[in-house]
């Protein structure tokens, strides 16, 4: 049933967040990659033979549905972003954020080339 998929997703999500927040508490910060851990668990689960052979399509549909609606969720996220705040910060904010993102993006091909060699 679809609700099983939702329940599994929520379970993994909360498990990941628990680890993220526990790690955060240990290091005295907020959340250290809770979502990342949850994603890792979901990937581990859905790559098992059990998942592929035994779990019903309807259960899978529950997770796929949430994965599919993330596009509108991102649009809604942008709808409530603080665009004015980005301009108000003036030149310092624009250069600090701008050069950081451009500089890091330019490094991408070199690092991903290395990732390919590794395999």
């Amino acid at each position, binding site marked *: 049933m679809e609700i099983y998929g939702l329940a599994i997703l929520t379970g993994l999500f909360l498990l990941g967040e628990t680890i993220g927040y526990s790690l955060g508490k240990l290091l005295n910060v907020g959340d250290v990659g809770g979502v990342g851990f949850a994603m890792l668990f979901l990937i581990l689960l859905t790559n098992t033979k059990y998942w592929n052979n035994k779990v019903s399509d309807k259960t899978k549909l529950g997770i796929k549905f949430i994965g599919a609606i993330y596009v509108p969720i991102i649009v809604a996220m942008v709808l409530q972003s603080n665009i004015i705040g980005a301009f108000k910060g003036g030149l310092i904010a*624009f250069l600090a954020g701008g050069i950081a993102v451009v500089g890091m993006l330019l490094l991408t091909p070199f690092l991903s080339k290395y990732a390919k060699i590794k395999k």
Partner: protein
Amino acid sequence: MDIIKDLLTKNGLIWACLVVGVIYVLAMYINKYLFRSKLNTFTIAMLIAMAISGIVGAYTGKTKGLADIPIFAGVGILGGSMLRDYAIVATAYGAKIEEIKKGGLMAVVSLIIGVVGSYIIGVIIAIAFGIKDVKDITTIGAGACTFIVGPVTGESIGASSEAIALSVAAGVVKSVLAMILIPTLGKVLKINTPQAAMVVGGLVGTTSGTVAGLTALDPALVPYGAMTATFYTGLGCFLCPSILYIITRAIL
């Protein structure tokens, strides 16, 4: 009129689905007739959303764009961190474990380079603009990581409120630019494999920007980029107020 207003406020979340749906349809038609389907519908929807939240933000003077208007508060729930994080986790469905193993080491390396590199760039800009206080300089450096790392760092080391505001602005600029630059530069930068997406997530960090940018570029890459990006803020919140602050203070 009052009935409609009440209904929309009461059903905020599902009403937000209609709002986003209308924006999406609009984006589709703009793409079809103005750009002959050469652009990505999602990119146009995102630009429309940015324009709306910018205009509304200028009008209300608040920070949450369209969600600051009471009848559109549901947009804040639909696009808020709870559903966003839940949905991002769900995108991991179908990601291949072999791809992650292949890119794992470089993802860690890119995370460290991403946080430290962004921090250094922010620090240099802050110094170039004549900011003297080490705490303020550190906070702006942290803001160049993400708009969460900035204020977290600033508050924990006791920076001025101006520096904290600047750091948030720097992080927001980074996020917005990532949304635009990742899809436009994606081909040139060869962001076309899961491993490259993991590297982008680690280098750029800012989850909102990376996820929105990768969606516009290629939705199949989203899980890989999102996964590394979600570790970025945590790593930044850990490194900036501690090790990086101490090193910066020692140098200056």
